[in-house]
């Protein structure tokens, strides 16, 4: 019996050590499972996916940039056109350069073509929300983040987003432009 007990003891100690190892083996195993099954990527999707996106429709957005003649700046969009789905969150960038030899404060004013598209153009982040101060010769990249409301009418296939920069210190040429 004592012999049998010793054998049993050995087996059980080996099992214990094996399970201790198994605890650590779960670490690479965990990462492998996540990778193979895409499990951890799975929740990224559920977190970020916007259920409002309407993938059945596409709208072309044209980006336009102008500078008021009193302002010595260069201003252009990074991309000229882009196709988006209504509801999709989109980020684009504009580049602006102060070509003069002194700092200037400017403010961009948006406008839309056709004008009725303005109601569906939801800007979440825009350089046009605040005045921009550029040092002499400075170049800056500025983001715009927006969603085209899925309620946008289906006949609308192209929307133009246009910005014009004005010098806030000098009297602008058009005082009626609506700030967006």
């Amino acid at each position, binding site marked *: 019996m004592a012999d049998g007990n010793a054998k049993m003891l050995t087996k059980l100690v080996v099992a214990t050590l094996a399970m201790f190892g*198994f605890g650590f083996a779960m670490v690479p195993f*965990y990462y492998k499972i996540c990778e193979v*099954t895409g499990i951890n990527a799975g929740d990224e999707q559920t977190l970020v996916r916007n259920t409002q996106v309407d993938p059945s429709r596409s709208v072309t957005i044209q980006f336009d940039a102008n500078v008021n003649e009193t302002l010595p700046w260069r201003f252009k969009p990074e991309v000229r056109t882009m196709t988006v789905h209504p509801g999709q969150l989109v980020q684009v960038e504009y580049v602006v350069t102060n070509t003069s030899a002194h700092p200037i404060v400017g403010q961009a004013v948006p406008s839309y073509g056709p004008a009725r598209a303005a109601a569906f153009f939801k800007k979440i982040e825009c350089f046009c929300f605040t005045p921009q101060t550029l040092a002499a010769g400075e170049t800056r990249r500025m983001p715009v983040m927006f969603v085209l409301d899925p309620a946008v009418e289906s006949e609308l296939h192209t929307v133009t987003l246009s910005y014009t920069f004005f010098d806030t210190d000098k009297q602008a040429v058009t005082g009626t432009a609506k700030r967006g």
Partner: protein
Amino acid sequence: MSDVAHAHGHDDHGHHAHPTGFMRWLTTTNHKDIGSLYLIFALIMLFAAGAMALMIRAELFKPGLQLVHPDFFNQLTTMHGLIMIFGVIMPAFSGFANWQVPLMLGAPDMAFPRMNNWAFWILPVAGLLLMASFFLPGGAVAGGWTMYPPLFIQGGISYDLTILAVHIMGLSSIMGSINIITTILNMRAPGLTLMKMPLFVWTWLITAYLLIATMPVLAGAVTMLLTDRNFGTHFFNAAGGGDPVMFQHIFWFFAHPEVYILILPAFGIVSQIIPTFARKPLFGYASMVYATASIAILSFIVWAHHMFTVGMPVAAQLFFMFSTMLIAVPTGVKVFNWVATMWRGSMTFETPMLFAIAFVCLFTIGGFSGLVLAIAPVDIQLHDTYYVVAHFHYVLVSGALFSIFAGVYYWLPKWTGHMYSETLGKWHFWLSVIGMNIVFFPMHFLGLAGMPRRIPDYALQFTEFNQIATVGAFIFGFSQLLFLAIVLKTIKGGAKATSKVWEGAEGLEWTVPSPAPYHTFETAPVIK
């Protein structure tokens, strides 16, 4: 303690000269001594962790902060949980195993008596480490008994001590399990086949395997916490590329089987008691064995039902939801068998039977709330609310703890040679069963209404149910002093117990005199 010493002492017919006093207990390798030590340790820790629970309930009597600092409150909930699980329920079951397994198998002692001594005596060390951490800078651990990172890799010195204590307690139960498995498989009396073993022995055999399979995994998990804390590894530290959710997977891979470790021996105890007082053999013995084994096996594939809210993909949620519900089937088989055993039996209602019947009814309530929590979309609402607290107290208090009370009343006459006072026992039973329901039943409503767990303060609308729960807690808590008094009184004296003790009792332990002599079955009995 010394009373128990004398009780056994004069039955010792002097095989060897035994040391006396404290040294006798420190060096003992006798399974009955060690069984008593485990039970005494569990009883002391029951009062320690119970006092913490009463402080928690006192704070929650009113909304707002009144008695304790919120950080101390978190220490209380954490330590209450850790000590109740590792310091009360598990040692108490080990105590039963040490006393009863050799007696029920006709074996002279456990297979490895010296290891048995070690397995017990490292436990008080762990207990001291845990209790001492309250007095260290920063206080005891406050991150919850589940030890989740990042909290658990941020705390102070007591976190390291607690990890050490968990290692020690794990080692203790692994040594205990090795002993139990070897004793059961190698030391049964001739003719006692596996399928003739008492159900208590069966459930402990399966529990011991669960312990050997899962305790080392817990040891691994807390070792990783320790190295993350002190040696710059990044297993769970997201800042270093680790993943805290991975800890939850490893932890619950251990901890779900652990909850069955906390209940299978209870199933065993109740399966001994109900046939005795129904005076009928256990209904469906074989199905009980298979049900226990299936519960144990299934318990390894359900762990993530504790993690429905971590952002698992739907397929995984469905898998864990259905596998969890599957466990209810063998559990239902057991409840059915207990009821069928009582059906048309000649029942009497001594205290052990009362606790066993309460166990069947109230554990079932806990099983049902478990099924509710197993439904993933429902659990997303109920996770980390008092509904979960209600669930696990129904399975652990009216389940595990009540089975321990039942077992103590059932076997105390065999251990001490005296009958306990039936009147006092019944008082203890009714106070406990009423108190327990007053504490924990309202928690279902609190949880459904959205009260989060582990928070020292709550919104005004939860006040009434919390006050009811607190009143119940004090009734329940103080009635355990009665239990202490009954046990002490029975050790000191009382009506002499016969060897059989209970009219309907069956099994080898009832063939030896009461109190069981220091050495029993030195020549193995033969089972026909």
